[in-house]
């Protein structure tokens, strides 16, 4: 589904991505793991076309994304820090996004998260008055709203309270069973244990490995993902 081939990106002197190649196929739930500043978010932004790679290319459903922007209608993206126009209310933001994406065939809107997060009672609130957690809830609802085939979630549970992150995890599991491709970055490894099927580990812009979860557990001899990753990090 998403193939990245030898993607490199520099920000000034910083080598954010160094010859990264990944293959992401359908009905997998892939965790992007790595220390801070290892290039996870840059890779995600490259896939979304928000950052233009210096070299290498990315294809989505066999189409190069640099020539074709329509592929983004198959993606739901939840950013790490959701930034929204300050003087719009939650309701206006949702309505605007629906209005902008409406002409796509996907008429079926998935408003489950809006309801379960209780956002329908906050529709009149302006974006600038929202707390970080509520902002995350809006981002999550927007990502799932259009029933996309691919979900890209950048630190989805950071800033969410335990109840909300549980709701979000349930939702992710549900979408995974529908056969969608899900990409998650997170630092809370214990959370990923029951979600993910594959692990991509990145460090300093390099992709160190891309393995199935079972393989990783077997090769390190650990039961828990957090221990397995700690094991890997110590070996390096």
């Amino acid at each position: 589904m998403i193939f990245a081939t030898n993607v490199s990106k520099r920000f000034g002197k910083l080598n954010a991505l160094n010859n990264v190649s990944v293959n992401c196929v359908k009905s997998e739930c892939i965790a992007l793991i790595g220390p801070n500043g290892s290039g996870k978010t840059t890779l995600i932004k490259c896939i979304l076309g928000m950052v233009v790679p210096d070299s290498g290319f990315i294809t989505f459903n066999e189409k190069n994304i640099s020539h074709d922007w329509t592929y983004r209608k198959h993606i739901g993206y939840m950013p790490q820090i959701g930034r929204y126009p300050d003087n719009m209310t939650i309701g206006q933001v949702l309505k605007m996004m629906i209005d902008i994406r409406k002409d796509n065939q996907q008429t079926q809107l998935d408003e489950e998260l809006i309801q379960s997060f209780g956002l329908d009672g906050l529709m009149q609130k302006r974006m600038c008055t929202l707390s970080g957690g509520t902002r995350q809830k809006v981002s999550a609802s927007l990502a799932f709203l259009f029933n996309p085939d691919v979900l890209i979630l950048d630190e989805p549970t950071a800033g969410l309270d335990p109840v909300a992150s549980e709701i979000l995890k349930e939702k992710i599991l549900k979408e995974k069973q529908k056969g969608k491709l899900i990409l998650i970055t997170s630092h809370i490894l214990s959370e990923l244990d029951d979600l993910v099927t594959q692990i991509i580990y990145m460090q300093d812009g390099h992709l160190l490995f891309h393995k199935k979860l079972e393989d990783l557990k077997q090769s390190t001899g650990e039961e828990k993902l957090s221990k397995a990753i700690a094991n890997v990090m110590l070996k390096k």
Partner: protein
Amino acid sequence: MKKITKYVIADILRNKIVLAYTVFLWIISFTVFNLENNATKGLLSLLNIVLIIVPLVSIVFATIYVYNSSEFIELLVSQPLQRKKIWISLFAGLAGSLSLAYFVGAGIPILIYALSSTGLIMLLMGLFLSIIFVAIAMLAAVITRDKAKGIGISILLWLYFSLLFDGLVLFILFQFQDYPLEKPMLLLSGLNPIDLGRILILLKMDVSALMGYTGAIFKDFFGTGIGFSIALLVMLVWIFVPVWLSARRFCRKDL
């Protein structure tokens, strides 16, 4: 594309600064026209305001607006929208609302008090200048990520077009006063939209006699239908080139 433009215009029209700008232009125009019984004298006073205030407000407001809507742009870029279209819509929204503000604030008084070819030219030039300086602002805003730097660049550009350029032209004139400079002056005037607007308005006012021999050349050139069309074409170039350059740059920008 229309949808994004609609959201941008709705957002700007709610902005109090644009409202204040409209009211300010409205008050100035009515004062100027009521001070003098002669509408042409009123137009002459209004000329300086149009040539100084309109570009300044357009360029500064548009630059600040582009920086302030970075969240909005970021939100749109991750959606299935073409980057070029996002940028052009933003430009269309800004240019549309600032032209509307100018039309309501200064255009309507002109139409009421000075409905003549001079008045119409002034109306047209004001609209052109609003749009041109929004286009230049978009270019200034896309060049740098830093808001303070971006606003600085646009103020410098305004200063260049409204003051420094004239100084440079004068300098050239004095340095090369032994040579016939009338034809090159025609070319030079095309390098500054504000000057071009001023010349076109002054020529209609028949005060071009005050500009001496160069004025006669200007009259010879811009007074004809072809010259006037060329001047309008140059104005259009002043809109399209900055928008095209900034759109090209925006398409490659990392957000």
